[in-house]
């Protein structure tokens, strides 16, 4: 296996190439463009045997991927921010049509004001589309997760679309040494896509037909719900298999670091986890028992894993690099929701951090752990807090 110095975007492109994606439909947008440029290079040079469709918008990119997947092709696209939002209608369609499209979204802030920097509002806003959502921390994880996504999405008892995410620039443009798996290894891991139902001129059927309220709409939605619930187990199985082949795995749905004896734990998704690990190692040397639980899969949500954590950790801080106006951060409210049915619920505080790409530094993280220790001894000071916000009293 060869190691290359590449960034998250190239890692995603290598993932699509190694997975042998057959149809790529894409529209460029910063900071994602390098992904589809690199895939275009692979196709142009003949390294990748695929049909590359240049479309006029992200909406069309997703429509083309759904159509190609309906015909039985393995598809790939990538987008970010406004582009993902423009796809929104068709994201629902991909799920309803049970087309296992695989995509990479680079998490970028939503305008206005214009910002191309890291913020997870774009993907959080796709929560109810029925797509599986995986958040990567490293370049290697991004490559591996793209390949694993195909296997999970295309499982005959799942057949749901999925996207992996990269925090803008922190992951999309940061170079790290990445092990590029051999093609034969990936071929052995990921069989060709052969869906049971596909567009076939010799066997015409109506696709996406109408369903009256007394007919099957509700039941078809229930089938999606069941498949998404099954995907929890499938994600773990696929990751186990990947580990056996490559030695690499990433903690399943909830990636925990030094939580086993922790007094306080931060929950986070995305690249800030690397900074948090550094802080944990530092604070542990000072005798402070701190830990991290990284949400790797937001959909399906790691409900059981969060409950297991809540059994032995009684003070939890949840970091959101996004905000749901009128409520709170999505990770915060969902973590609380998962814990609610427990008899002895932990104290949970929501931290809004890094919005619009504001740096989440070690100092920021230390401040959060300090706050969590105060909560542990003195109870919750507030339900949620915007961190590193320029407030009048400190300006």
């Amino acid at each position, binding site marked *: 296996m060869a190691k290359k110095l590449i960034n998250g975007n190239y890692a995603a492109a290598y993932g699509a190439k190694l997975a042998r994606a057959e149809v790529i439909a894409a529209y460029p947008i910063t900071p994602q463009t390098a992904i589809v440029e690199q895939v275009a290079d692979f196709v142009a040079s003949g390294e990748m045997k695929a049909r590359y469709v240049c479309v006029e918008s992200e909406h069309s990119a997703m429509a083309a991927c759904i159509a190609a997947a309906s015909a039985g092709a393995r598809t790939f696209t990538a987008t970010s921010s406004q582009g993902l939002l423009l796809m929104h209608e068709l994201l629902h369609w991909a799920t*309803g*049509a*049970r087309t296992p499209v695989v995509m990479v979204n680079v998490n970028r802030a939503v305008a206005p004001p214009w910002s191309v920097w890291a913020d997870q509002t774009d993907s959080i806003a796709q929560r109810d589309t029925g797509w599986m959502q995986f958040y990567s921390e490293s370049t290697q994880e991004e490559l591996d997760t793209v390949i694993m996504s195909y296997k999970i999405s295309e499982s005959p008892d799942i*057949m749901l679309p999925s996207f992996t995410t990269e925090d803008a620039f922190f992951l999309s443009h940061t170079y790290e040494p990445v092990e590029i798996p051999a093609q034969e290894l990936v071929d052995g891991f990921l069989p060709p896509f052969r869906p*049971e*139902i596909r567009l076939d001129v010799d066997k*015409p*059927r*109506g*696709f*996406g*037909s109408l*369903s009256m309220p007394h007919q*099957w709409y509700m*039941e*078809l939605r*229930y*089938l999606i719900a069941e498949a998404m619930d099954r995907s929890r187990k499938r994600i773990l199985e696929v990751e186990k298999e990947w580990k056996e082949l490559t030695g690499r795995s990433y903690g399943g749905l909830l990636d925990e670091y030094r939580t086993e004896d922790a007094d306080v734990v931060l929950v986070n998704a995305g690249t800030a986890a690397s900074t948090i690990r550094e802080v944990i190692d530092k604070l542990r040397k000072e005798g402070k028992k701190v830990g991290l639980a990284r949400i790797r899969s937001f959909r399906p949500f790691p409900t059981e894993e969060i409950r297991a954590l809540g059994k032995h950790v009684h003070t939890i801080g949840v970091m959101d690099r996004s905000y749901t106006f009128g409520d709170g951060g999505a990770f915060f409210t969902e973590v609380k929701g998962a814990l609610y049915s427990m008899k002895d619920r932990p104290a949970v505080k929501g931290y809004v951090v890094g919005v619009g790409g504001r740096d989440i530094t070690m100092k920021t993280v230390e401040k959060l752990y300090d706050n969590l220790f105060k909560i542990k001894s003195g109870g919750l000071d507030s339900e949620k807090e915007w961190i590193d916000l320029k407030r009048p009293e400190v300006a």
Partner: protein
Amino acid sequence: MSKPIKSYKDLPLAPITYEDTREAFKTGSWRTFKPLVDNSKCKKCWICWKFCPDMSIRILDDGSGIEFDYDHCKGCGICATECPAKCITMVTED
């Protein structure tokens, strides 16, 4: 239908029909206006056949004109509008 659907367990994975939709659904009952053709005036340009959005116009085997598939024609009237020979007329359905 290949098997009766009684619960979600009997459904196909995706919202598809088990057979050719045209066989399952006779949409001609939606019609308010019905097209009639006078084949003696037909110029055999087949513009009506090209424009029909429901593939409900059939060219007669001997090429002498057209006939309508009234099981599926919804009576949109595109054929009557497009016909350069004005040999198709729309009449109110009885």
